[in-house]
Protein backbone atom coordinates (compact mmCIF):
# COMPACT_ATOMS: atom_id res chain seq x y z
CA UNK A 1 0.00 0.00 0.00
CA UNK A 2 1.30 3.43 -0.96
CA UNK A 3 0.93 5.58 2.18
CA UNK A 4 1.03 8.83 0.23
CA UNK A 5 -2.76 9.27 -0.22
CA UNK A 6 -3.27 8.66 3.52
CA UNK A 7 -0.56 11.13 4.43
CA UNK A 8 -2.10 13.66 2.06
CA UNK A 9 -5.56 13.10 3.56
CA UNK A 10 -4.40 13.79 7.12
CA UNK A 11 -2.27 16.73 6.04
CA UNK A 12 -5.26 18.26 4.26
CA UNK A 13 -7.57 17.58 7.22
CA UNK A 14 -5.13 19.06 9.75
CA UNK A 15 -4.44 22.24 7.75
CA UNK A 16 -8.13 22.71 6.98
CA UNK A 17 -9.19 22.24 10.61
CA UNK A 18 -6.57 24.66 11.95
CA UNK A 19 -7.49 27.37 9.40
CA UNK A 20 -11.17 26.83 10.11
CA UNK A 21 -10.70 27.08 13.87
CA UNK A 22 -9.10 30.50 13.47
CA UNK A 23 -11.84 31.64 11.08
CA UNK A 24 -14.73 30.11 12.98
CA UNK A 25 -14.03 31.57 16.43
CA UNK A 26 -14.79 35.19 15.47
CA UNK A 27 -17.48 34.11 13.02
CA UNK A 28 -19.28 31.99 15.62
CA UNK A 29 -19.05 34.81 18.18
CA UNK A 30 -20.44 37.24 15.65
CA UNK A 31 -23.32 34.91 14.77
CA UNK A 32 -24.03 34.14 18.42
CA UNK A 33 -24.04 37.66 19.86
CA UNK A 34 -23.73 40.19 17.03
CA UNK A 35 -26.60 42.51 16.30
CA UNK A 36 -26.83 43.04 12.57
CA UNK A 37 -29.19 42.71 9.68
CA UNK A 38 -28.75 39.97 7.12
CA UNK A 39 -27.70 37.39 9.70
CA UNK A 40 -30.07 34.91 8.03
CA UNK A 41 -28.26 35.26 4.72
CA UNK A 42 -24.84 34.69 6.29
CA UNK A 43 -26.10 31.72 8.28
CA UNK A 44 -27.69 30.15 5.22
CA UNK A 45 -24.54 30.61 3.13
CA UNK A 46 -22.40 28.97 5.80
CA UNK A 47 -24.83 26.07 5.99
CA UNK A 48 -25.04 25.44 2.23
CA UNK A 49 -22.43 22.63 2.23
CA UNK A 50 -24.67 20.69 4.60
CA UNK A 51 -27.43 20.38 2.04
CA UNK A 52 -25.86 20.81 -1.40
CA UNK A 53 -24.34 17.84 -3.24
CA UNK A 54 -20.53 18.20 -3.01
CA UNK A 55 -20.43 18.15 -6.79
CA UNK A 56 -22.35 21.44 -6.95
CA UNK A 57 -19.85 23.16 -4.66
CA UNK A 58 -17.01 21.47 -6.51
CA UNK A 59 -18.38 22.64 -9.83
CA UNK A 60 -18.68 26.29 -8.81
CA UNK A 61 -15.27 26.24 -7.15
CA UNK A 62 -13.81 24.71 -10.29
CA UNK A 63 -15.21 27.63 -12.29
CA UNK A 64 -14.06 30.17 -9.71
CA UNK A 65 -10.55 28.76 -9.46
CA UNK A 66 -10.13 28.40 -13.21
CA UNK A 67 -7.75 30.99 -14.70
CA UNK A 68 -10.31 31.65 -17.44
CA UNK A 69 -12.57 33.36 -14.90
CA UNK A 70 -11.83 36.56 -12.99
CA UNK A 71 -11.20 35.09 -9.51
CA UNK A 72 -8.80 32.42 -10.70
CA UNK A 73 -7.11 34.89 -13.05
CA UNK A 74 -6.78 37.44 -10.24
CA UNK A 75 -5.28 34.90 -7.80
CA UNK A 76 -2.85 33.79 -10.47
CA UNK A 77 -1.76 37.33 -11.37
CA UNK A 78 -1.43 38.51 -7.75
CA UNK A 79 -0.10 35.41 -5.96
CA UNK A 80 1.17 33.44 -8.93
CA UNK A 81 -0.96 30.59 -7.64
CA UNK A 82 -3.12 28.27 -9.72
CA UNK A 83 -5.84 26.82 -7.51
CA UNK A 84 -7.33 24.18 -9.78
CA UNK A 85 -5.73 20.77 -9.44
CA UNK A 86 -3.42 21.97 -6.68
CA UNK A 87 -3.09 21.39 -2.94
CA UNK A 88 -3.77 25.05 -1.96
CA UNK A 89 -6.96 24.90 -4.01
CA UNK A 90 -7.93 21.75 -2.18
CA UNK A 91 -7.37 23.49 1.18
CA UNK A 92 -9.56 26.47 0.20
CA UNK A 93 -12.30 24.16 -1.07
CA UNK A 94 -12.16 22.07 2.10
CA UNK A 95 -12.33 25.17 4.27
CA UNK A 96 -15.52 26.30 2.53
CA UNK A 97 -16.95 22.81 2.45
CA UNK A 98 -16.37 22.11 6.17
CA UNK A 99 -17.21 25.62 7.42
CA UNK A 100 -20.58 24.73 9.00
CA UNK A 101 -19.05 21.80 10.86
CA UNK A 102 -16.73 24.17 12.69
CA UNK A 103 -18.97 27.24 13.03
CA UNK A 104 -22.25 25.69 14.14
CA UNK A 105 -21.05 23.68 17.16
CA UNK A 106 -18.95 26.59 18.43
CA UNK A 107 -21.83 29.02 18.02
CA UNK A 108 -24.15 26.60 19.83
CA UNK A 109 -21.56 26.25 22.61
CA UNK A 110 -21.28 30.02 22.99
CA UNK A 111 -25.03 30.46 23.01
CA UNK A 112 -25.54 27.76 25.59
CA UNK A 113 -23.51 29.70 28.16
CA UNK A 114 -25.65 31.82 30.49
CA UNK A 115 -25.65 35.49 29.41
CA UNK A 116 -24.81 36.39 33.00
CA UNK A 117 -21.27 35.01 32.57
CA UNK A 118 -20.52 37.60 29.90
CA UNK A 119 -22.28 40.31 31.86
CA UNK A 120 -20.46 39.44 35.07
CA UNK A 121 -17.19 39.78 33.19
CA UNK A 122 -18.24 43.21 31.89
CA UNK A 123 -19.24 44.42 35.34
CA UNK A 124 -15.82 43.23 36.54
CA UNK A 125 -14.22 45.63 34.09
CA UNK A 126 -13.26 43.23 31.31
CA UNK A 127 -13.84 44.20 27.68
CA UNK A 128 -15.41 42.00 25.01
CA UNK A 129 -12.04 40.67 23.85
CA UNK A 130 -10.88 39.61 27.33
CA UNK A 131 -14.32 38.20 28.05
CA UNK A 132 -14.19 36.09 24.89
CA UNK A 133 -10.78 34.60 25.60
CA UNK A 134 -10.86 34.38 29.40
CA UNK A 135 -14.50 33.48 30.06
CA UNK A 136 -16.35 32.25 26.99
CA UNK A 137 -13.76 30.06 25.26
CA UNK A 138 -12.56 28.19 28.36
CA UNK A 139 -16.19 27.37 29.12
CA UNK A 140 -16.97 25.96 25.68
CA UNK A 141 -14.03 23.58 25.44
CA UNK A 142 -16.26 20.57 24.72
CA UNK A 143 -17.98 22.43 21.85
CA UNK A 144 -14.66 23.54 20.38
CA UNK A 145 -13.15 20.08 20.66
CA UNK A 146 -16.23 18.54 19.04
CA UNK A 147 -16.21 21.11 16.25
CA UNK A 148 -12.52 20.55 15.55
CA UNK A 149 -12.78 16.80 15.40
CA UNK A 150 -16.00 16.71 13.38
CA UNK A 151 -14.38 19.11 10.92
CA UNK A 152 -11.27 16.98 10.76
CA UNK A 153 -13.28 13.81 10.21
CA UNK A 154 -15.50 15.48 7.64
CA UNK A 155 -12.46 16.63 5.68
CA UNK A 156 -11.01 13.12 5.83
CA UNK A 157 -14.27 11.85 4.36
CA UNK A 158 -14.39 14.43 1.57
CA UNK A 159 -14.69 12.99 -1.91
CA UNK A 160 -16.87 14.85 -4.38
CA UNK A 161 -15.35 18.29 -3.97
CA UNK A 162 -11.80 16.91 -4.04
CA UNK A 163 -12.47 14.97 -7.19
CA UNK A 164 -14.03 17.98 -8.92
CA UNK A 165 -11.34 20.54 -8.23
CA UNK A 166 -8.32 18.46 -7.27
CA UNK A 167 -8.49 15.62 -9.68
CA UNK A 168 -6.23 12.74 -9.10
CA UNK A 169 -2.60 13.87 -9.08
CA UNK A 170 -0.45 11.51 -6.97
CA UNK A 171 1.25 13.33 -4.12
CA UNK A 172 -0.59 16.57 -4.81
CA UNK A 173 -4.33 16.01 -4.77
CA UNK A 174 -4.82 12.26 -4.64
CA UNK A 175 -6.21 11.80 -1.14
CA UNK A 176 -7.23 8.46 0.38
CA UNK A 177 -10.91 8.68 -0.55
CA UNK A 178 -9.99 9.26 -4.19
CA UNK A 179 -7.36 6.51 -4.04
CA UNK A 180 -9.98 4.04 -2.82
CA UNK A 181 -12.24 5.01 -5.72
CA UNK A 182 -9.37 4.50 -8.18
CA UNK A 183 -8.44 1.11 -6.77
CA UNK A 184 -12.04 -0.06 -6.97
CA UNK A 185 -12.30 1.18 -10.56
CA UNK A 186 -9.16 -0.82 -11.34
CA UNK A 187 -10.69 -3.85 -9.55
CA UNK A 188 -7.87 -3.80 -6.94
CA UNK A 189 -10.21 -4.59 -4.07
CA UNK A 190 -7.36 -5.58 -1.76
CA UNK A 191 -5.64 -2.18 -2.03
CA UNK A 192 -9.01 -0.39 -1.69
CA UNK A 193 -9.66 -2.38 1.44
CA UNK A 194 -6.28 -1.41 2.92
CA UNK A 195 -7.00 2.30 2.54
CA UNK A 196 -10.59 1.91 3.70
CA UNK A 197 -9.59 -0.05 6.82
CA UNK A 198 -7.00 2.51 7.82
CA UNK A 199 -9.46 5.40 7.38
CA UNK A 200 -12.14 3.49 9.27
CA UNK A 201 -9.87 2.61 12.19
CA UNK A 202 -8.28 6.04 12.56
CA UNK A 203 -11.52 8.02 12.37
CA UNK A 204 -13.20 5.63 14.79
CA UNK A 205 -10.42 6.06 17.34
CA UNK A 206 -10.52 9.86 16.98
CA UNK A 207 -14.27 10.02 17.54
CA UNK A 208 -14.04 7.63 20.46
CA UNK A 209 -11.40 9.78 22.10
CA UNK A 210 -13.40 12.96 21.61
CA UNK A 211 -16.59 11.57 23.05
CA UNK A 212 -14.85 10.13 26.09
CA UNK A 213 -12.98 13.40 26.72
CA UNK A 214 -16.17 15.40 26.31
CA UNK A 215 -18.09 13.14 28.64
CA UNK A 216 -15.45 13.67 31.28
CA UNK A 217 -15.42 17.46 30.75
CA UNK A 218 -19.19 17.59 31.03
CA UNK A 219 -19.20 15.44 34.15
CA UNK A 220 -16.77 17.78 35.87
CA UNK A 221 -19.07 20.70 35.17
CA UNK A 222 -22.16 19.04 36.64
CA UNK A 223 -22.59 19.77 40.34
CA UNK A 224 -22.57 16.49 42.23
Amino acid at each position, binding site marked *: MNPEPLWLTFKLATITSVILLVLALPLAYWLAFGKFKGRGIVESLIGMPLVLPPSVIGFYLLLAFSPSYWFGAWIESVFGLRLVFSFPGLVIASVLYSLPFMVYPIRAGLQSL*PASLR*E*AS*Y*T*LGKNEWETFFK*VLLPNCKPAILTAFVITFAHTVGEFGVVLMIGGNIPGVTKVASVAIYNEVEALNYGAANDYAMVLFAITFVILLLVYSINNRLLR*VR*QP*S
Partner: protein
Amino acid sequence: MSDSLLDVHIKHSLQTVHGVMPMEIALSLAKGQILAITGPSGAGKTTLLRQIAGLLTPETGKIVFEKDVWLDSSKQTSLAPQLRNIGFVFQDYALFPHLTVEENLLFGLPKGCDRNIVDDLLTATELSNLAHRKPSQLSGGQQQRVALARALVRKPHLMLLDEPFAALDYDMRYHLQDMLLRFHRQHQFTMIIVTHDIGEIFRLADQVAIIENGKVILQGTPTEVYAKDPSQTGDFVIFGEVLSCVRQADQLLVSALVENKVRQLTLPLNLASEMIPGNTFTLRYPMDSARVMLIRH
Protein backbone atom coordinates in the same frame (compact mmCIF):
# COMPACT_ATOMS: atom_id res chain seq x y z
CA MET B 1 -31.98 66.20 43.42
CA SER B 2 -28.71 68.01 44.02
CA ASP B 3 -28.04 66.12 47.27
CA SER B 4 -28.59 62.76 45.76
CA LEU B 5 -25.81 60.48 44.64
CA LEU B 6 -27.72 58.50 42.08
CA ASP B 7 -30.42 59.91 39.82
CA VAL B 8 -32.24 57.67 37.43
CA HIS B 9 -34.82 58.77 34.89
CA ILE B 10 -35.58 56.25 32.23
CA LYS B 11 -38.24 55.39 29.69
CA HIS B 12 -38.30 52.05 28.00
CA SER B 13 -40.63 49.59 26.30
CA LEU B 14 -40.69 46.38 28.29
CA GLN B 15 -41.30 43.21 26.30
CA THR B 16 -43.62 41.05 28.39
CA VAL B 17 -45.74 37.98 27.73
CA HIS B 18 -48.74 40.31 27.52
CA GLY B 19 -47.13 42.48 24.86
CA VAL B 20 -45.22 45.71 25.13
CA MET B 21 -45.50 47.59 28.41
CA PRO B 22 -44.24 51.17 28.77
CA MET B 23 -41.73 51.54 31.58
CA GLU B 24 -41.10 54.89 33.16
CA ILE B 25 -38.98 55.16 36.26
CA ALA B 26 -37.58 58.06 38.25
CA LEU B 27 -35.47 57.28 41.29
CA SER B 28 -33.00 59.14 43.50
CA LEU B 29 -30.76 57.74 46.14
CA ALA B 30 -28.51 59.43 48.70
CA LYS B 31 -24.96 58.30 49.39
CA GLY B 32 -24.66 55.19 51.49
CA GLN B 33 -28.33 54.35 51.34
CA ILE B 34 -29.77 50.94 50.69
CA LEU B 35 -32.73 50.86 48.34
CA ALA B 36 -34.85 47.75 48.03
CA ILE B 37 -36.81 47.31 44.83
CA THR B 38 -39.74 44.97 45.02
CA GLY B 39 -42.91 44.17 43.14
CA PRO B 40 -44.47 41.39 41.09
CA SER B 41 -42.49 39.36 38.59
CA GLY B 42 -42.16 40.97 35.18
CA ALA B 43 -42.71 44.48 36.55
CA GLY B 44 -39.33 45.66 35.34
CA LYS B 45 -37.18 45.32 38.47
CA THR B 46 -34.35 43.35 36.91
CA THR B 47 -34.55 45.44 33.75
CA LEU B 48 -34.08 48.59 35.82
CA LEU B 49 -31.08 47.11 37.63
CA ARG B 50 -29.49 46.06 34.33
CA GLN B 51 -30.07 49.52 32.90
CA ILE B 52 -28.32 51.12 35.86
CA ALA B 53 -25.44 48.67 35.39
CA GLY B 54 -25.23 49.49 31.69
CA LEU B 55 -25.96 45.93 30.60
CA LEU B 56 -29.08 47.19 28.87
CA THR B 57 -29.64 50.61 27.33
CA PRO B 58 -33.05 52.18 27.88
CA GLU B 59 -34.72 53.88 24.92
CA THR B 60 -34.46 57.29 26.53
CA GLY B 61 -33.29 58.57 29.85
CA LYS B 62 -30.55 59.90 32.04
CA ILE B 63 -28.53 58.23 34.75
CA VAL B 64 -26.14 60.27 36.87
CA PHE B 65 -23.95 58.78 39.60
CA GLU B 66 -21.54 60.82 41.72
CA LYS B 67 -21.89 63.66 39.18
CA ASP B 68 -20.71 61.34 36.38
CA VAL B 69 -23.16 61.01 33.54
CA TRP B 70 -23.58 57.29 32.90
CA LEU B 71 -26.35 57.67 30.43
CA ASP B 72 -27.82 60.59 28.58
CA SER B 73 -29.88 59.58 25.61
CA SER B 74 -30.29 63.22 24.52
CA LYS B 75 -26.51 63.38 24.02
CA GLN B 76 -26.20 59.78 22.82
CA THR B 77 -23.85 58.95 25.65
CA SER B 78 -23.91 55.64 27.41
CA LEU B 79 -20.99 54.58 29.54
CA ALA B 80 -20.00 50.91 29.14
CA PRO B 81 -20.63 48.71 32.20
CA GLN B 82 -16.84 48.30 32.52
CA LEU B 83 -16.52 52.02 33.23
CA ARG B 84 -19.35 52.31 35.74
CA ASN B 85 -18.19 51.99 39.29
CA ILE B 86 -20.46 49.08 40.19
CA GLY B 87 -20.52 45.65 41.70
CA PHE B 88 -23.25 43.37 40.38
CA VAL B 89 -24.51 40.23 42.07
CA PHE B 90 -26.51 38.10 39.67
CA GLN B 91 -29.50 35.99 40.54
CA ASP B 92 -27.75 32.87 39.23
CA TYR B 93 -24.43 34.00 40.84
CA ALA B 94 -22.69 33.89 37.41
CA LEU B 95 -19.49 32.43 38.84
CA PHE B 96 -16.94 31.43 36.22
CA PRO B 97 -17.09 27.61 36.26
CA HIS B 98 -13.54 27.12 34.99
CA LEU B 99 -11.94 29.23 37.72
CA THR B 100 -11.45 28.46 41.38
CA VAL B 101 -12.99 30.62 44.09
CA GLU B 102 -9.80 32.59 44.45
CA GLU B 103 -9.37 32.97 40.67
CA ASN B 104 -12.96 34.19 40.40
CA LEU B 105 -12.08 37.00 42.79
CA LEU B 106 -8.71 37.72 41.17
CA PHE B 107 -10.50 37.99 37.81
CA GLY B 108 -12.13 41.20 38.97
CA LEU B 109 -8.94 42.71 40.41
CA PRO B 110 -7.71 45.56 38.21
CA LYS B 111 -4.14 45.15 36.94
CA GLY B 112 -1.47 46.34 39.34
CA CYS B 113 -3.84 46.42 42.31
CA ASP B 114 -2.89 45.02 45.67
CA ARG B 115 -4.18 41.47 45.92
CA ASN B 116 -4.58 41.76 49.67
CA ILE B 117 -8.18 42.75 49.13
CA VAL B 118 -8.84 39.30 47.67
CA ASP B 119 -7.43 37.60 50.75
CA ASP B 120 -9.34 39.98 53.01
CA LEU B 121 -12.61 39.29 51.22
CA LEU B 122 -12.00 35.53 51.29
CA THR B 123 -11.49 35.75 55.04
CA ALA B 124 -14.50 38.01 55.57
CA THR B 125 -16.75 35.68 53.60
CA GLU B 126 -15.32 32.61 55.40
CA LEU B 127 -14.11 31.17 52.10
CA SER B 128 -10.38 30.98 52.79
CA ASN B 129 -10.35 27.21 53.14
CA LEU B 130 -12.44 26.81 49.97
CA ALA B 131 -10.24 29.15 47.90
CA HIS B 132 -8.99 26.41 45.60
CA ARG B 133 -12.34 24.78 44.91
CA LYS B 134 -14.31 25.20 41.71
CA PRO B 135 -17.80 26.74 42.00
CA SER B 136 -19.44 23.40 41.14
CA GLN B 137 -17.97 21.97 44.36
CA LEU B 138 -19.68 24.57 46.54
CA SER B 139 -23.10 24.78 48.18
CA GLY B 140 -25.57 27.50 47.18
CA GLY B 141 -24.72 29.66 50.15
CA GLN B 142 -21.00 29.32 49.51
CA GLN B 143 -21.48 30.22 45.85
CA GLN B 144 -23.45 33.29 46.85
CA ARG B 145 -20.63 34.35 49.16
CA VAL B 146 -18.17 34.04 46.28
CA ALA B 147 -20.46 36.17 44.11
CA LEU B 148 -20.71 38.79 46.83
CA ALA B 149 -16.96 38.84 47.47
CA ARG B 150 -16.20 39.00 43.75
CA ALA B 151 -18.52 41.98 43.28
CA LEU B 152 -16.65 43.80 46.06
CA VAL B 153 -13.14 43.25 44.67
CA ARG B 154 -13.20 46.44 42.61
CA LYS B 155 -14.33 48.47 45.63
CA PRO B 156 -17.48 49.64 43.85
CA HIS B 157 -19.33 52.71 45.00
CA LEU B 158 -22.64 51.24 43.90
CA MET B 159 -23.66 47.65 44.58
CA LEU B 160 -26.49 46.16 42.54
CA LEU B 161 -27.96 42.88 43.73
CA ASP B 162 -30.62 40.95 41.84
CA GLU B 163 -32.56 38.74 44.25
CA PRO B 164 -29.28 37.54 45.70
CA PHE B 165 -30.60 35.36 48.49
CA ALA B 166 -33.82 34.06 46.93
CA ALA B 167 -32.54 30.53 46.45
CA LEU B 168 -31.15 30.11 49.97
CA ASP B 169 -32.71 28.67 53.09
CA TYR B 170 -33.64 30.94 55.94
CA ASP B 171 -30.54 30.52 58.11
CA MET B 172 -28.17 31.11 55.23
CA ARG B 173 -30.17 34.11 54.05
CA TYR B 174 -30.05 35.64 57.52
CA HIS B 175 -26.33 34.99 57.76
CA LEU B 176 -25.63 36.57 54.36
CA GLN B 177 -27.83 39.60 55.03
CA ASP B 178 -25.77 40.15 58.13
CA MET B 179 -22.56 39.81 56.14
CA LEU B 180 -23.87 42.24 53.54
CA LEU B 181 -24.73 44.80 56.22
CA ARG B 182 -21.26 44.40 57.68
CA PHE B 183 -19.68 45.03 54.26
CA HIS B 184 -21.99 48.00 53.78
CA ARG B 185 -20.83 49.56 57.05
CA GLN B 186 -17.19 48.82 56.28
CA HIS B 187 -17.03 49.87 52.60
CA GLN B 188 -19.70 52.59 52.68
CA PHE B 189 -21.13 51.79 49.27
CA THR B 190 -24.60 52.69 48.07
CA MET B 191 -26.77 49.71 47.27
CA ILE B 192 -29.82 48.68 45.30
CA ILE B 193 -31.24 45.25 46.00
CA VAL B 194 -34.09 43.57 44.17
CA THR B 195 -35.98 41.31 46.55
CA HIS B 196 -39.35 39.71 47.20
CA ASP B 197 -38.67 39.11 50.87
CA ILE B 198 -40.38 41.63 53.14
CA GLY B 199 -38.21 40.52 56.06
CA GLU B 200 -35.15 41.30 53.96
CA ILE B 201 -36.51 44.74 53.06
CA PHE B 202 -36.99 45.59 56.72
CA ARG B 203 -33.65 44.17 57.74
CA LEU B 204 -31.59 45.83 55.02
CA ALA B 205 -33.27 48.76 53.35
CA ASP B 206 -33.44 52.45 54.19
CA GLN B 207 -35.76 52.99 51.25
CA VAL B 208 -38.08 50.71 49.40
CA ALA B 209 -39.64 51.23 45.99
CA ILE B 210 -42.50 49.08 44.81
CA ILE B 211 -42.53 48.71 41.04
CA GLU B 212 -45.62 47.57 39.24
CA ASN B 213 -46.15 47.51 35.49
CA GLY B 214 -43.00 49.49 34.84
CA LYS B 215 -43.78 52.32 37.29
CA VAL B 216 -42.74 53.10 40.84
CA ILE B 217 -46.08 53.05 42.61
CA LEU B 218 -44.75 53.66 46.13
CA GLN B 219 -41.45 54.79 47.56
CA GLY B 220 -40.34 55.59 51.08
CA THR B 221 -38.95 53.95 54.18
CA PRO B 222 -40.23 50.39 54.61
CA THR B 223 -42.55 51.45 57.43
CA GLU B 224 -44.00 54.33 55.42
CA VAL B 225 -44.47 52.26 52.30
CA TYR B 226 -46.09 49.27 53.90
CA ALA B 227 -48.28 51.35 56.20
CA LYS B 228 -49.37 53.46 53.22
CA ASP B 229 -50.17 50.48 51.04
CA PRO B 230 -53.81 51.13 50.02
CA SER B 231 -54.60 47.43 50.16
CA GLN B 232 -53.98 47.59 53.89
CA THR B 233 -55.57 50.93 54.82
CA GLY B 234 -56.80 51.10 58.32
CA ASP B 235 -55.28 47.81 59.29
CA PHE B 236 -52.41 47.70 61.70
CA VAL B 237 -49.48 45.85 60.27
CA ILE B 238 -46.30 44.87 62.04
CA PHE B 239 -43.21 43.19 60.72
CA GLY B 240 -40.79 41.51 63.00
CA GLU B 241 -38.53 38.69 63.83
CA VAL B 242 -39.25 36.05 66.46
CA LEU B 243 -36.79 36.00 69.33
CA SER B 244 -38.57 33.57 71.61
CA CYS B 245 -41.96 31.96 71.90
CA VAL B 246 -43.55 30.47 75.00
CA ARG B 247 -46.93 28.81 75.23
CA GLN B 248 -49.01 30.05 78.14
CA ALA B 249 -52.46 28.54 78.66
CA ASP B 250 -54.26 29.05 75.34
CA GLN B 251 -51.99 31.78 74.06
CA LEU B 252 -48.49 32.30 72.72
CA LEU B 253 -46.19 34.80 74.41
CA VAL B 254 -43.83 35.97 71.71
CA SER B 255 -40.83 38.23 72.12
CA ALA B 256 -40.08 39.81 68.81
CA LEU B 257 -37.74 42.32 67.31
CA VAL B 258 -39.94 44.97 65.72
CA GLU B 259 -38.24 48.02 64.21
CA ASN B 260 -35.15 47.34 66.24
CA LYS B 261 -37.00 47.15 69.57
CA VAL B 262 -37.94 44.07 71.52
CA ARG B 263 -41.74 43.78 71.83
CA GLN B 264 -43.97 41.31 73.64
CA LEU B 265 -46.87 40.02 71.61
CA THR B 266 -49.74 37.82 72.65
CA LEU B 267 -50.85 35.68 69.77
CA PRO B 268 -53.34 32.87 69.15
CA LEU B 269 -52.08 29.30 69.41
CA ASN B 270 -52.66 28.51 65.74
CA LEU B 271 -49.60 30.58 64.84
CA ALA B 272 -47.29 28.37 66.93
CA SER B 273 -45.79 26.67 63.89
CA GLU B 274 -44.71 30.02 62.43
CA MET B 275 -43.37 31.59 65.61
CA ILE B 276 -40.02 29.86 65.61
CA PRO B 277 -37.07 31.92 66.81
CA GLY B 278 -35.28 33.38 63.81
CA ASN B 279 -38.37 33.49 61.59
CA THR B 280 -39.60 36.80 60.28
CA PHE B 281 -43.31 37.49 60.18
CA THR B 282 -45.85 40.04 59.06
CA LEU B 283 -48.90 40.33 61.26
CA ARG B 284 -52.02 42.17 60.36
CA TYR B 285 -54.59 43.37 62.87
CA PRO B 286 -57.69 44.23 60.85
CA MET B 287 -59.74 47.25 61.98
CA ASP B 288 -63.01 45.41 61.74
CA SER B 289 -62.22 42.25 63.67
CA ALA B 290 -60.23 41.13 66.64
CA ARG B 291 -58.54 38.29 64.76
CA VAL B 292 -54.82 38.56 64.15
CA MET B 293 -53.73 37.36 60.75
CA LEU B 294 -50.39 36.21 59.56
CA ILE B 295 -49.50 37.37 56.08
CA ARG B 296 -47.44 34.83 54.22
CA HIS B 297 -44.92 35.90 51.64
